[in-house]
């Protein structure tokens, strides 16, 4: 019970402060949980390890959770892991169910966060041992599995797949980075582009450009009326009640578990978690055609997964000394700055720190829920701001976020604009933005794991025969693809029988 002495009012105050600041970071397009933790990391110099971690864990949970606000209200994912929240969250807002969507998302986030904290507390070392069974091959197959969502997200299959492949291609522009074991050579660009594109296009500016800026361009083209928020009404649709979770318990558990599981695999990345759980919900849903059109189950899948990630990503960090995602990679700094090394013996040798971390994580999730759930009534009013005032403000925040993401690289602002234009023009010619961005997010990892698998094993057949885990993943990939094709055939049949509007 040594850890109880560390649980001071300052400790809880720092968690709460971290959560609130994190939510603000997460809610501003272009600012992420990772950025929140990185910006506040130097503040931990003056704190001891326990209090420093309290602040950073608060920021982490708040930052991941805050991303749902712009995703639902403005169709701009506040963080990469809230992309799939836009798919159903924004349509709900358009139906006048913004508050309902936000509350559903927040409650799902709380569930995902708490479940993953529980898993972390009970099974961290065991799961870390399981995580190291995932070599390059299994990680590649997980990414491939996540990529299968492209098939089910596409409105028109061929165009969707084309958009996905285009996304993968765009992600490969730049150096084949030495930091991932590449040869450092530049690809897919002309010589004059090298000074700008050596690191490729940054994810956040691409994301905000395609989602945020492109939407604003479309609205601008249509002409922004002076009256308030056009056709968006605050409470025109159904109000929130916890009954929204009726029939969604399996979804909640499955998505939180997927988030936790993906989080604990180093290098697979946070966005894959929500993409995977969204795919699975679409596959298992009683009526998959509703997803993407404002179904609360989509928001539940996405948000419980991305908060499930928080506990998951801490598993390899605390059990192996290896960060599970980009935010925990920054979090590791809090330990090194205090001269404490993480590794397989960390938990056993630092039980008090471990226990306080767990308290901070659970408390952060509760504070996140309390702050967001009760502030939602005010937050949701953002959509009542006249668009001619709101949109310039959003553009300004997007530009600031894009500029700040890599500590002041102007090219990131041009990337934002470039992808805004690409998104705007692309949609006119039928390009599908969601598959494109998913291809972009997962493309680099897919390449690295594929190439490294071949370098290590030298044969393609190893992808099928490496391990029972690999075979199991192939079965999941097969089922996912089959579901998508089956769904497509069913939709076509329905269109033939009843006409496309039914």
């Amino acid at each position, binding site marked *: 019970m040594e850890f109880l002495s560390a649980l001071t009012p300052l400790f809880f105050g720092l968690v709460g402060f971290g959560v609130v600041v994190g939510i603000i970071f997460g809610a501003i397009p272009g600012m992420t949980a990772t950025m929140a933790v*990185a910006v506040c*990391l*130097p503040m931990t*110099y003056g704190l001891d390890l326990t209090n420093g971690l309290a602040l950073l864990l608060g920021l982490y949970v708040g930052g991941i959770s805050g991303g749902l606000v712009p995703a639902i209200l403005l169709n701009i994912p506040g963080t990469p892991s809230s992309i799939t929240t836009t798919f159903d969250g924004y349509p709900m807002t358009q139906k006048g169910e913004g508050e309902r969507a936000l509350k559903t998302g927040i409650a799902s986030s709380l569930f995902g966060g708490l479940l993953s904290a529980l898993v972390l507390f009970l099974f961290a070392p065991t799961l870390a*041992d399981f995580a*190291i069974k995932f*070599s*390059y091959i299994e990680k590649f197959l997980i990414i491939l599995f996540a990529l299968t969502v492209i098939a089910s997200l596409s409105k028109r299959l061929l165009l969707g797949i084309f958009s996905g492949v285009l996304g993968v291609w765009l992600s490969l522009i730049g*150096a084949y*980075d*030495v*930091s*991932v*074991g*590449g*040869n*450092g*050579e*530049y690809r897919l660009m002309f010589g004059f582009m090298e*000074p700008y594109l*050596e*690191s490729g296009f940054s994810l956040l500016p691409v994301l905000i450009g395609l989602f945020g800026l492109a939407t604003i361009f479309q609205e601008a083209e249509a002409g922004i009326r002076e009256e308030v928020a056009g056709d968006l009404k605050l409470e025109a649709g159904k109000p929130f009640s916890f009954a929204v979770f009726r029939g969604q318990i399996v979804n909640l558990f499955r998505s939180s578990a997927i988030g936790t599981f993906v989080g604990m695999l*180093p*290098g697979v990345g946070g966005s894959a978690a929500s993409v995977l759980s969204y795919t699975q919900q679409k596959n298992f849903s009683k009526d998959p055609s509703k997803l993407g059109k404002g179904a609360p189950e989509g928001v539940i899948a996405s948000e419980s997964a991305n908060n499930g990630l928080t506990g998951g990503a801490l598993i*390899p960090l605390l059990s*192996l*000394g*290896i*960060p599970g995602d980009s935010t925990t*990679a*920054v*979090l*590791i*700094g809090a*330990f*090194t*700055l205090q*001269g404490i*090394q993480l*590794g*397989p*013996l*960390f938990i056993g040798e630092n039980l008090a720190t471990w226990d306080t971390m767990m308290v901070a994580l659970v408390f952060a999730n509760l504070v996140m829920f309390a702050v967001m759930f009760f502030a939602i009534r005010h937050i949701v009013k953002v959509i009542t701001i006249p668009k001619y005032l709101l949109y310039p403000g959003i553009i300004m925040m997007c530009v600031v976020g894009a500029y700040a993401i*890599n*500590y002041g*690289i102007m090219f990131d602002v041009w990337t934002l604009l470039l992808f805004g234009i690409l998104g705007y023009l692309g949609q006119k010619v039928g390009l599908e933005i969601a598959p494109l961005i998913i291809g972009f997010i997962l493309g680099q990892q897919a390449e*690295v794991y594929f190439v*490294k698998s071949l*370098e*290590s094993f030298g044969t393609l057949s190893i992808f099928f025969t490496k391990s029972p885990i690999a075979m199991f993943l192939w079965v999941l990939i097969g089922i996912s693809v089959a579901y998508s094709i089956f769904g497509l055939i069913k939709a076509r049949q329905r269109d033939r029988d009843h006409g496309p509007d039914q």
Partner: protein
Amino acid sequence: MNIMKSGLLAALVATAGIASSQALAEDMPIGGNVRIVIGSKSTGGDTYQNTSIVAKALAEKLDINVKVDAVGASAAFKAIDRLSDGNTIMVFHDQSYLGFLYGRKGYSNPFADYTVGPTVAINPGNAYLVPKSSPYQTIEDIIQACADGKRIRVAIQPGGVSEIGFSALKNAIKIRYPGKEANLVAVNTGSQADKNQLLFDGQADLINGSVQANEQYTRLPADDQKAMRFVWLTARKQTIEQANPEGMGETSREDLLKYVSPNASVTQDGSKDFTFDKEFFFLYNKDMSPEIVAFYDKALGEIFAEGKIQETQKKSFFIPNFKPSSEAQAYLKDKMDQYKVIIESIR
């Protein structure tokens, strides 16, 4: 009386310290705050950790704000390429010239294109490890295995600090058993997690790691799939000897000394052993005024003379190593020239 004397002395020293800080702050040839860009994108790594220690000391000494930005090598070099006002400076380590020697894109000769500033610390932790169940107990076993025609796969991140030990090992095998160096093959990978994973998967026989990141793995029981064993630390013996006696984790300084030259011998040229200390130093714009270079030398010189920073560095397993710019330039240039010979000999 004695107490009064020592109190008076302490007050005098403190006053002198404040006076010197004030003098430095007043004579500052730079305007405003300082941004230190580092060659790493990680805020959890040794470059950020070491630079943060130095930045904090500089901020206190000069009474200004000093911000460390983990922008990565390419962006950091670009930043100091552009700005010569001394407000934006860089801290990096031997990677800055090793990247150039290995021909990595984005790297140029730092001695030609930038002004190399003072060194501040060494990270003595660069290490090579095998699985605990490995038949190879020592680095000599690895060399002998290659000599016997066995293929040894070494997981490294190519093009820099992680590769230099591999190059040296290959060079040593070439000197002792010409033609057998081909048996030592690199498995190029990325992060420490990836290197560890290759060892767990049985896809590498030897990995590059560090005392800090891998020490806990060496304390796992032999039947644990994750258990590892140090076979070689590239640091010089006198570097490790300066570490705190408790070493890192449960591995004492005495334990660590078992893995450095001459106990773990990798010849550089047939007569002396190869060693590599990862040293952190400042880099400035080529045209930065000599007055500013001297200013930072003086400020850091005073910080190290006070002796407080050394304690912080050692607590974090860094070895203090302040050398003013001119001394650092000659020293690092010599180091680069030596490694150039090794890298070219195995090309």
